[in-house]
């Protein structure tokens, strides 16, 4: 599986989670029946990296710093991904004792 973010190939993550996000709301009638409004169904992808080199981290960080939504694709047909996403990076932690900065991050991509 190869992922491209903003047309740039990024490393394969240690774990990859695809979430379904329903944009909408429930309402409850007087008799307790549930009704639903659905505005859209979106995806969210969480890519976890535990040993990311400084170079690879900077590649992702440069895209993150664009402050715009970007394209996200993969080369596999299952799952087939082609979306425009907002980019978030959760806490960056460092692995000590190495010659360069080795980072652990969670890259969260939310479909536009």
């Amino acid at each position: 599986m190869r992922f491209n973010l903003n047309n740039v190939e990024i490393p394969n993550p240690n774990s990859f989670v695809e979430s379904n996000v329903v944009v909408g709301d429930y309402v409850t009638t007087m008799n307790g029946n549930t009704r639903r409004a659905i505005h859209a169904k979106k995806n969210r992808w969480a890519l976890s990296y535990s040993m990311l080199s400084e170079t690879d981290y900077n590649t992702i960080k440069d895209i993150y710093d664009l402050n715009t939504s970007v394209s996200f694709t993969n080369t596999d047909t299952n799952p087939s991904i082609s979306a425009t996403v907002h980019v978030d990076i959760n806490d960056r932690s460092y692995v000590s004792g190495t010659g360069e900065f080795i980072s652990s991050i969670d890259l969260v991509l939310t479909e536009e």
Partner: protein
Amino acid sequence: MIDVNDSIKSATSGTTRSPSAALRVCWDRTQLTTQWFQLDQSPFDDEFVLTLNTYQNGETINEIISEIDNFKYVDESDYLISAEGLEELRGDDYQSVMSEADIVLDNTTQRFTPQVNKNLLANPDFESNFDSWSISSGGTIGNWQLVGGVDIVSGTQSMKILNPASQTVFIYSDSVDVASGIHYTASIFARGTGNIDLRVVAVGSGTQVVGSGTLSTALNSGTVQRFQMPYSLPTTAKEAYLRVGVSSGSMIVDGAQLEQSVEFTSYDSNFIGDKILPKRPTKIDILMLDKPGGTGGYIPKFSGLIENADPNIKGDIINIHCYDYATELQDIPAQSTSSGMGMYVNHYSHTLIRELGYKAGLTDGDMSIQSGSQIIPFAWFQEGSTWYYMQNIAEAEGGRVFFDQDGVLNFWGADYLDSNSGTQYNFTFDDNILDLNHRVDKDVIKNDIVVKSNVREVQNNQEIWSYGGVLQLEPGQSTEVWATIQDQEGRGLPCTSIDEPSVNGSTSYWKANTAYDGTGNDISSSIALLSWYAFATSAKMKFDNQGGSTAYLSIVLYGTPAKIVKEIEVQREDTDSINIYGRQTLQIENDYITDENYAVNTASDKLYNLKDPLTHVSVQVRGVPFLQVGDAINIEDGWSGNTRNLFIIRNRWQILDGGDFIQNLDLEQRTLADFFQLDEKTFDGPSVLQR
């Protein structure tokens, strides 16, 4: 109820549905044909045209964004976070409707922040052509191409520049006006190979380049970067342009920006910042689908004008409040001399409504007027607004006047209103009622109803004014005389016509003698009437003594006054309700109510509807966007499962971020068309049962 197709009805009532809102705004009030309302005095109204693409001043604009009604609207739905609205029946007899709306828009791009347009460049994202850009003399047209599908910042197109040579090949924007001696920043998004050369070029008088700031750096082939070049313009600069090129490689660029700033700010391809102004025509539609991308359709929900716009910079949102065109008509006076003295004799109510619409600047295409049944013997549009008189006439008719969701003025006569009062929707605890309250409020209880009217009718031609005493006029002297026409109680007496006086005229006349007491010689013919102006309750005339003797004038005016011929005062009260809640009086005063039987019916109707607090219900429901105030609905009004038929008098609707379309309806019991009232006089002879 707004007429909608079965697909929308089905989507609305489904257990799962996909509601959303659409927003259109005409930011510059540009109209396609004739004016509908008077433009405000803002200078923006005169010259600015809203366009899809950006243009520089003086550039030819030949695009039209859309054509809806009379205005050119822009679809702002992509920015819409939430929309809320209120429709409310107004008036003692619910004879009119007022509506308003509140909108919250996403302003993260600063599109809706009032400002001078920060991006001075036209066609900054190369979406469909190279307009407003030129190619350097060292390049050829073959070096540029639109790159479909490589959208690096905005839209669907970008520009690709190929130049394997070491010499920089560049494109440059049209020059724009600038202020000298301050910072401007050029910025552009780019990726590619080789080196980018980005410049701000300052131009002085003519085409003389007086300075430039240059950024030259390597491109990244994989990652899009935003490059910037801040530059303090020389004091001699009058114009500036952005120049960008590539050497020893190829480059894809998008999102060029030249702005007055010490560094780049968020990219802005829009052209809206200087048009965030009040009184912009606005429309809101509700899109109701059975599922995202499913079947259903749009329901027009609101049409009006922006009252105020409140950008919240920290929250990156803008709150906009809108009012409907009825509020606009409250500021348009009805008084006009375009139709005689602004007086109308024996006209149907719908004719008068249409006439008031004309006075407000509406055309037949802006109005949907149903026939009324009441003939108003005399109407005089004096000092009030057009909306004020429309409401009074609608009340006298027992009808309703309102601007609908498309911005069209509607008038429903009593018969039309009655025939459209059938039940429009069923609300149940199972399906769509989310909350319900019986509103017990002393203020909504009315158990003593009084209807009053002073009915005027136009009289035959008769004496309406005479000069109080004798007017002395020396030879060669001219004098101006004002005649103020009043009734016996000293109230202004409107006249549909006032005859111009003449010497010894058969109606209005003057007579002049040489003696104060009316004796001596008759010298009436030596007096000339130099000018004559007749108004509704007055007349102005100027006399000149062209003889050789002192003249003593008496003046008499004839006209057709609209006198008060009948004073209607009808009272109805409910003793049981008064004993419980105390006397609470509703007084309806409307001089266009000319029929005493109609006044009796009105009082009886109001008493029946308002004497009992339990007839007032507030209910929150899963919204039905095609319902309107005045519609009748069936609701389950308690756990017993009983249903009641009530009218919507207030409709608050909302569609919040990610939420369902919700309505809060205030409901009242109202009598329908088949309410009968016995004639009060006698039960035999000519008396009849009447509605």
